[in-house]
């Protein structure tokens, strides 16, 4: 059941329901943000007076357009695409494009709304937006994907610009699609405007450390949470779920900071290596050979592979869920707490169920929610824009250094905001409020726009 809203916020929510019928995901996202704002309105009554919340809930611009394309057999298909330019108070609209059959306006608005606050949390000058299409890349050939991307950009380009709206990738949009989209933008505008899209290849305007950013960022955030408890990662035993980019670079950074990661996983099972996960093997298997993690034991006979094993049953000091949504439930949370785990930071999006979060919070364990702990990816997009704007290409070390500073700042903001609102250590509260306040204050300062 959803929590009751503050009496000042309930009419606002009702208005949102009324103005956006049938967009259940968007309704849910708005409700979740409004739930946390009660104390904020007490401290910032001007937000109510200036109708900042109502303005935030209404996208600045919504673009819906037709994308016709031809398949390899010459058959014509028509998809629908969206770009919701939600909020540019802090910077150009920034948010990914999603290609998935489930995409409709309500989903894009839900994602765009959340993106405003995620981006704001980084402290970088980026606004919030989201886009996508109900195009299903499943089973499409390379050529079909290219034709679709080109058709989409042929309409979308007029709404984009490095100072206006900067899309990136999301589900169904990876490096290949970003390449096709950028190529078409360049061709139509006759401008090599690197900063118009992020997620580009390293050779043509992409940023170093992008692959590593989310995993590294999660561990930087974890280190800060431990530091706030007067502790550090040094000597800690860590388990990391998953073995994709986020997990691999979380493991790498954790090792670099003196921790020992003893378990990781993929959809088939878990690997437990009490001597410490050998990251070279994991990288070889996952990044180069693209194989299952079960092959780890071929190179490390002492390690254990448990098919369909539960990684949260492996005792540890720190747990980093970096695999997928809803992978850590109440029962897993209980096991972690009973095994003496002191910190959990989410590298994945919403990996912990509400029951799990509640158990962590009751146990006073340091729990870093994904919107803060995995903000490294968003941050690197902003860093890519900065490099593009200055026509520069930073070194890996410099980029990583900037990432670390951003994550330290995110932690600091969340920690301080949580303290300011009377719940020290409650990073969920801190993360939810910090982003909102930054956006709201900027909007307020800019007058009625």
């Amino acid at each position, binding site marked *: 059941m959803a929590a009751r809203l503050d009496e000042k916020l309930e009419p606002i929510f009702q208005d949102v329901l009324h103005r956006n019928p049938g967009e259940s995901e968007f309704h*849910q996202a708005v409700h979740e943000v409004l739930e946390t704002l009660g104390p904020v309105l007490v401290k910032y009554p001007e937000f109510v007076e200036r109708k900042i919340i109502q303005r935030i809930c209404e996208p600045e611009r919504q673009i819906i357009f037709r994308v016709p394309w031809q398949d390899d057999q010459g058959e014509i298909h028509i998809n629908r695409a969206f770009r919701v330019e939600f909020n540019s108070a802090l910077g150009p609209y920034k948010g990914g494009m999603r290609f998935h059959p489930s995409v409709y306006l309500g989903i894009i608005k839900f994602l765009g709304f959340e993106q405003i606050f995620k981006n704001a949390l980084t402290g970088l000058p980026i606004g919030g937006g989201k886009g996508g299409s109900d195009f299903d890349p499943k*089973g499409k050939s390379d050529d079909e994907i290219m034709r679709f991307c080109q058709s989409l950009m042929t309409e979308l380009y007029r709404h984009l610009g490095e100072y206006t709206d900067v899309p990136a990738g999301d589900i169904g949009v990876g490096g290949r699609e970003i390449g096709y989209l950028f190529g078409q933008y360049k061709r139509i505008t006759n401008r090599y405007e690197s900063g118009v899209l992020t997620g580009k290849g390293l050779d043509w305007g992409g940023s170093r450390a992008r692959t590593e950013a989310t995993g590294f960022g999660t561990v930087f955030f974890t280190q800060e949470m431990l530091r706030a408890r007067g502790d550090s990662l040094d000597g800690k035993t860590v388990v990391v779920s998953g073995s994709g980019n986020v997990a691999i670079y979380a493991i790498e950074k954790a090792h670099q900071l003196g921790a020992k990661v003893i378990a990781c996983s993929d959809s088939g099972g878990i690997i437990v290596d009490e001597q410490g996960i050998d990251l070279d093997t994991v990288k070889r298997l996952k990044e180069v050979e693209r194989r299952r993690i079960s092959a780890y034991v071929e190179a490390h006979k002492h390690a254990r592979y448990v098919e*369909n094993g539960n990684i949260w049953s492996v005792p540890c000091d720190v747990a980093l869920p970096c695999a997928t949504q809803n992978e850590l439930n109440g029962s897993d949370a209980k096991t972690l707490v009973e095994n003496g785990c002191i910190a959990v930071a989410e590298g994945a999006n919403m990996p912990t169920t509400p029951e799990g979060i509640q158990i962590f919070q009751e146990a006073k364990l340091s729990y870093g929610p994904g919107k803060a702990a995995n903000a490294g990816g968003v941050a690197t997009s902003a860093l890519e824009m900065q490099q593009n704007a200055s026509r520069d290409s930073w070194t890996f070390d410099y980029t990583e250094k900037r990432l670390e500073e951003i994550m330290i700042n995110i932690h600091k903001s969340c920690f301080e905001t949580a303290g300011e609102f009377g719940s020290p250590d409650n990073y969920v509260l801190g993360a939810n409020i910090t982003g909102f306040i930054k956006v709201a204050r900027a909007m307020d300062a800019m007058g009625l726009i």
Partner: protein
Amino acid sequence: MTTVTDAGPDPAVSTGVPGLDQVLDGLRIGDNVVWRVTDLEDYRRFVTPFVASATDAGRQIIYLRFGQHPPLLAAGPGIRVIEVDARDGFESFTARIWELVETWGRGAFYVCDCLSDLLNAWATDTMVGYFFRVICPLLYELDTVAWFALLPQRHSRQTLDRIRATTQVMIDVYRAEDDMQVQPVKVWQRQSPTMFLPHRYRDGDFIPVTDSSSATRLQAAIEQQAHASQQLLDGWDRLFLEAEEHAGRTRDETGHALVRRILRVLISRDHRMLDLAQRYLTLDDLTAIHNRTIGSGFIGGKAVGMLLARAMLLQDDPDTWHTALDPHDSMFMASDVWYAFLVYNGLWPAVMEHRTREGFFEQAPALGDAILAGEFPPEVRPELIRTLDHFGQYPILVRSSSLLEDGFGNAFAGKYESVFLINQGDPEHRLEALENAIRQVYASTMSDDALSYRRSRGLEEQEEPMALLIQRVNGRFHDHWYLPDAAAVGVSRNTFVWAPEMDPKAGMLRLVMGLGTRAVDRIEGDHAWVIALDQPLKQPFRSLEENYRFSQHLVDSLDVNGPGLTTTDLTTLAREAPDLPLTSLGETDRAASERARELGLDHPVWRLTFRPLIRQGEVIRLASRMLSTLEAAYAHPVDVEFTIHLGGAGESPRINLVQCRPLATIGDASPVSLPPQPDPHRLLMATRGHFMGGNINLAIHRIIQVNAEAYSALDVHGKYQVATLVGRLARQTPERFNLMLAGPGRWGTSSPELGVPVGFADISRVSVLAEIADMGNGMVPDLSYGSHFFQDLVETGIAYVALFPGERDCLWNPGWLEQHTQQRTIDCLLPDDLPAVAIRECVEVMECEEVPLRILADITRQRLLGGHP
């Protein structure tokens, strides 16, 4: 008069002819008596008094009637006539006789029809000899006396020698002019100075021909008579000599008759296979097969399938296939060698114990071990040496090719072993390896898997001799690695149509680099490249990364310097064999190559997507043509295995077809028979099209159903909890149950609002997955067609069905489940850690163990029914 020497304490048994008793010193209990006659009337002349004498003595006479000649005896007091049909084959016949002898026990006397008539059924003397070798010792052990006749001119010397060596008494009967003479050839443990002389019959007595002059004259007369008919060759070889003599005249009636005779003893007993063989195999083809065959008997289903398919293609389009199809030079080890091996190693008693209901599984391990320790009969070994000479030092593959294998309804896919031999080293070593490989394939007939398959299909009583197909492994050397450029399994009906616009009739391929083992076997964690032949470049993935992840990473090849069959990751193989044709078979994974460069690993990194080969088009064109031709010829969907040999610059690829068989059915034995007008009240579901998996005839014992309306009402977290619950229930399902999942939208989606977000590991033991296009809230989801884990469905053989309630030709009637299944409460199935009631209420578990739900699907008609159709 003959003076006889007392040979032992055994009580004498009379032949019924006193004079003959004198010659032989009577018969002994345990004697097997073989009469070599030129006229069966002579045999009858001795049988009649023997039977009269024996019945007078109170003996039970069993007359084993299996010949085509007039009966020797009629049933009467003390005489029982038992008919046994030899046409069911050596094993059935011998087993039946064995059972009869055991049933009648000690003391019964036997009169058998002329053994030479077995040739009409088996076409080979070798097995006549082996039959005798099996039965004779049993008769001896059971204190019987048994009489047999032979027409020696119809048998090879080798067979006659084998029978002579086994029997206790052998008597030749000659006619010279009007005289009848007998000459004992062997009388075990009896002798006299004149016993083995010819004896002339005179007035009830047999007078030995004691002067050498008469004996020489007599012998000369006999030899003159016998010379014209005495055979040096086995009847089997004579049959094919006749075929060779008929070469070029195959269209006349004699030629047709000869083909029919040969097909019945070389190709199959199944009338559908015989019909096909008669249409496509010529007398010349059969002669060529014989020239490559070791031993006599059937060459087995796998060999037949390959040969038929080649003949079908060459007849259909000689221009194309003479160029595109590599010729085969396989050798066949025929089914009689299997029996000879068993008999030669004294394993027949064990075979008989194994044939009993209780012994079927119990005796199998011991028999399997005995087979592994067995020796080859002396006549086989030179043939094996000849086989090795034929293949030189090329690697070879010893493949099972049992009688029933690859036939209509009984694929035996993966039930028997195939053994790769690198075929390196000195000739003795290579021969030893070949013999071991053959033993290994033979022993695999005793595996639990094979026996369970036979029992489940009601085949345990049926004769299932193991023949072998010995093939040169197609491929080429890359340093010490030997592998084909690519290999594929093709199916003439695309059993995994994953997009509505795909045409199942176009067929599909599972393509791999290297040996075809990875295309044939479904190997978890690695994937053959699946190609819909009408849309060959389309893949069911959402991204390039997924494309690459679900591709083939490991390659099977033969390491001729090492252990032989080896599985190597592609990167290592590419490093060690830089001349692999990767540019034709794959593409570089740029992201992975970049990472490999950064990590100091080998790069570029290749992914086996086969896109260059597909784009080149020739293989796709040939595969399509091949599959449609074979399906038309079989009048049934087929699956094939072939290897691909890439041509040089400007040359087209060539195909080597190594297997073809009727497409098998998931579940019970085919054919799948769907009622033309099923009663809808008897159905849970029905659809036209929209299913994957091929022909299905499967009993379902448990159904886990997700309630669409309740599921849709849950929030995202609740939906994930439903997925977790379904996974737990699936894993908890007993092994003996076939399980079906039915639920709204896409199974395995990452977007819970579109369906239940299970992981594949949660449902990997499921037999049927049903996606229903109804979210219960008015939303009609776009079904996945299994694409979320398409490759996993293909690899594990899970059947998939998409149901669109309300659409024409689709029925989904969940009310049926209430009437025909028992509901199980989740609280009882999962004793602890139960999810909230709202979650449990979304999931129903229903069982129907006694009267299972049956899923029937016919891929040709594109129709699937579920219920009690």
